Structure formats: C-alpha cells, structure tokens
C-alpha cells in the first residue's frame, strides 16, 4: 500500500512576482524535474503544490533556500483509466465518508491526464479506489512520466 503514496512538495508563498522563477531555477541547478504543479491562491498568500521526481531532495533544497515547505502524502490517478473521471472518484470515496481535501489535474509529457488527490484518510482511500478497480500511480510511475 505504501508504494501507492506519492510525496508531494507543498510550500508557502506570498503572492509576489519572482517566487516561481526562484524555485524553478533552484530545481534546474539540481536537476530536479517538476511533474505536476498547481498554486492554490487565497488573498495575500498562496500554496504551491508540486509533484517532482526526487521529493526528498527537493524538500531539502527548498528548506535550505529558506522556504516554509512540507512533504504531503497524496494519491495519483491516470484519468483515462477512470470512466466518469473525478465524479466517479468522488462518489467512490464519498460512499466510505472519505473527504477530498483538494484535487488538481495536469497533463504529463506523454499527454496523459493525471489527477492528484489529497484525502483525509489516505490508506482508506487506497483500499477503496483499488477495490473499485481504479489504478493508482506510484513514485516509480512519477519518475517515468
């Protein structure tokens, strides 16, 4: 079950220009690749969430660069494997009272739509989703995409 958990990098950023460029250049120098990326904005601040190929290295790098950063456990689903898409996933989880904290989708280099989910009960969600025949992406997949 553990291997279905994806470590996402989350960091706190004020909505100031230049922050993203700063992060990207930090990663570029260290050869870390961003696979998925989203910003949740709320007024004066934003939370940047990223799936990268080497999360532990990325965490250390950003922490040392002075960012407030955490590693968060999330799940990844390839959307083309899920008939009905996000609605289907929400239904399956909702039946077991598992809440989705947030979700975001992005398109991989190989042009597949990948959905990232944070839920309030990750191990329960893995069981339920796999029980419903939904295949979860693991860290090894993340390194490939």
């Amino acid at each position: 079950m553990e291997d279905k958990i994806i470590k996402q990098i989350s960091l706190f950023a004020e909505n100031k220009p230049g922050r993203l460029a700063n992060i990207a250049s930090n990663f570029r120098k260290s050869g870390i690749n961003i696979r998925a990326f989203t910003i949740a904005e709320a007024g004066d601040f934003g939370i940047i969430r990223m799936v990268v190929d080497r999360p532990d290295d990325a965490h250390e790098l950003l922490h040392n660069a002075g960012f407030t950063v955490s590693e968060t456990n999330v799940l990844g689903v390839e959307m083309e494997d899920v008939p009905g898409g996000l609605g289907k996933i929400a239904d399956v989880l909702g039946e077991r009272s598992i809440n989705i904290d947030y979700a975001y989708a992005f398109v991989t280099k190989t042009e597949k739509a990948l959905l990232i989910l944070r839920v309030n009960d990750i191990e329960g969600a893995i069981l339920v989703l796999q029980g419903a025949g939904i295949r979860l992406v693991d860290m090894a997949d993340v390194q490939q995409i």
Partner: protein
Amino acid sequence: MREYWNPWIERMPVCELEKIQEKKLSDLVNYVYRHSGFYRKRFDEAGVNPGEIKTLADLKKLPFTYKSDLRDTYPTGMFCVPNEQLVRFHVSSGTTGKPTVVGYTQNDIDVWTTSLARAMTSIGVGRGDIVQVGYGYGLFTGGLGAHYGAEEVGATVLPVSSGNTERQIELMQDLGSTVIACTPSYFLFMNEVANNLGISIKDNTQMRVGIFGAEPWTEEMRKRIEESTGIKAYDIYGTSELSGPLFTECMYQDGIHVWADQFLIEIIDPVTGEQLPDGERGELVITTLAKEALPLIRYRIGDITVINRDECRCGRTHPRIMRVLGRVDDMLIIRGINVFPGQIEAVLMKMPEVGGHFMIVVDRVNELDVMKVQIEMTDEAFSDKVNDIMALEAKVASAMKHVLNLAVKVELVEKGSLPRSMGKAKRVIDNRKL
C-alpha cells in the same frame, strides 16, 4: 562574588535616602538656575524661585523638561558647564528633526559607570565573567556604557559591537563569553543564526546571562529567550539623555532598581501632567540628582511604566520601575484606541505555533484606520491546506481583538521576509497621512 557593589548605599533606609534626595534636589535646582540660561528662563516663566524647593513634595512645582528642549537648544544650549570641562559627547540620532547631544564631565562618566557597576553586581556579573558587548559603539551610548560598567566590576570585556552575527557566535564559543549585552531581538536573531550553523547557545557556549534593552520587550519574550538559550535574561534601562543604560533588574527579575541617591522618579498622567500614586501606570518622569554637564529636571522620558517602592527580596531599598510597557510616542492611536506594539508581541508569544517576528502596518482606507499585523509563517504552523492557514490567521486575529478591543487583519508572510534588526526592532509602518 560580591552581593552588593555599595551595600551601605544600596541598603540604606528609605527615609535616609529621601534626605539625600532632598538635599541634592535643592542643590540641583540652585545649580541649574545659576549655570544654565535655559533653566533660568524656564523657572522664571513658571514663577519658580529656586530657594523655595526644599522637600520632595516641592518637586511638583518644577516645570517639566522635554526631549524637544534638547533639540531646540541643539547642540549644547542646555549645558551647565563650559565645553572644556567635558570629557565626552554622545549623540542620539533624531528620527524627526535634529539629533540630541549629551555632554559628560569626568564625574558624569563616573556616576554612570557606578550605576551600572551596582546593577551588574546585582545580577551576579563580575570578576571572571566575559561580557560580550553587542550594543553599538560610537555615538550611541549602549556599547560604551556596558563596556565601562563591565570593566568597573572586574569582568573581561569583549567589545564586538553590533552586527557581524556569525563572528559574534564564533567569538562567543572560542573565548567562552558568559554574558551578552545587546537588544533582545538581536539576541533572538543571533540564536536563530547559531541554530542554522548547527550551534546551540545552550549546549555549545558558556553563556549564562543576558543584559537586554534599548527596545521594549515582554515577559513572554524573556521566557522564549531563557528556554531556548538556557541563559538568565535581565532587562536594562536608560537613555542617552540620562547618560545611557543605567539600571537593570536584580536577580529576582521583579522590576528595575533606580538608584535613588542619583535619580528621582515620579509617575504622571501623560495627558494632564499630574503626579500619580505609586502602583499606577503612567509616564515616567526622571530628575537627575548627580549630573553636572546636562542635568535634567522632571524629564519627560516618554516611557510608560509603574513604580514599586516596596523593599525588594534582594535587600535593596531603592525603588523599582516595573517592565517598561511602551513608549508614549510609540503608542498608536487607531480608531481612537491606544495600541502599544508590546501588546501585539505579548499575544504572539502566547501562541507558540506562530513566530515572534511581526510588523504592524497601519493604513487609512475610506477615512477609517485599518491595522494589519504581518507575522512570519513557521515550519510548525504550515499546512498545505488553504483553510488551515486561514483558520490560523483568524485565530490570531481573534486573540488580538480580545486584547486590543480592535479588529485586526492578520496576514501570514514568508519566513525570513520581515526585516531583522541589529538595533531597535522596527515594528510599525504607519502609512496614514494625518
């Protein structure tokens, strides 16, 4: 280790101290009337005859002296001695207008040094200590004041001055400094830098005492310093107009002893100027009883505090001023409500999940004052759920509203993004054009 620098004077019965004060006050009033054109004019205008000032009860007949008087008579218009009798000048930077100049005779320097020697002895600093002076040297009085006081008690001085934080930490370790004298916010910054270098002040240095001042700080900040660095943190008080840093708390950390044979203190209502009874909060007024070059009569120093005249557990009979609660001129008036930056700090220190670095930003939007408090995000407080962060902001805002009786917008900002200070922490940006 000596218990008292001067046991005879420090433990003198209050009635005898008051006799000394009355004698010195009456001498002082005659002295300034004779030697300073400024005071002669001020007394004449107030209808005060120096011969009439005989007891401490007569004190309230004397007119106040203000910081603006020092500026208006810049540079040396209030001095009571000719320049050739001066051994030193200090100059304090003026945030508004002209700076103020303070001159010292040799006796003024000696009185200043003695005051600090008594204070340092009262917190167990003396021979065998290495005192790292992290206050600025130069025109500012902090560095040289602490320096002379520490030498007087027989300690070894390490005159690092302020800034160059990594060097401070290196020397602290290599020379085994046992005492640090600097601003409390700078020491917290030093601790942060030390931690980033993998050095614990608690475990990897000999540091045991901190003498912190030159900016207002709170009991909660003391707790934070003592817990994170393992030292005992003492408050030091004084301003350049009075000579410089002069008084500290004693071992009991329960108020700052003001040497009554050298300084006379009162608390007044800052608005009406009336004397307030002991124990009431108000503006501190100080009369210097032993200064020669620039004596000050009923000087409105601008700090808000409380006087406690009860005999202290340390055996000293000299009155104590309780922790300075704020400056009359730092007081922000927001929608008619008095707000001191220290109150904001006290709220934050009680919420360990948020950091202690903050900035108050005041704006006027549609004729209404709006106060925003920016606080740095910490690793502990960070959640990657937007709602959690908004809930934390709301929780801090509600705690502040409870204390200030005022709606405050709380904004979490990136850690390290607010300015760190080497000297006085800048806590307020007031954008109101009043």
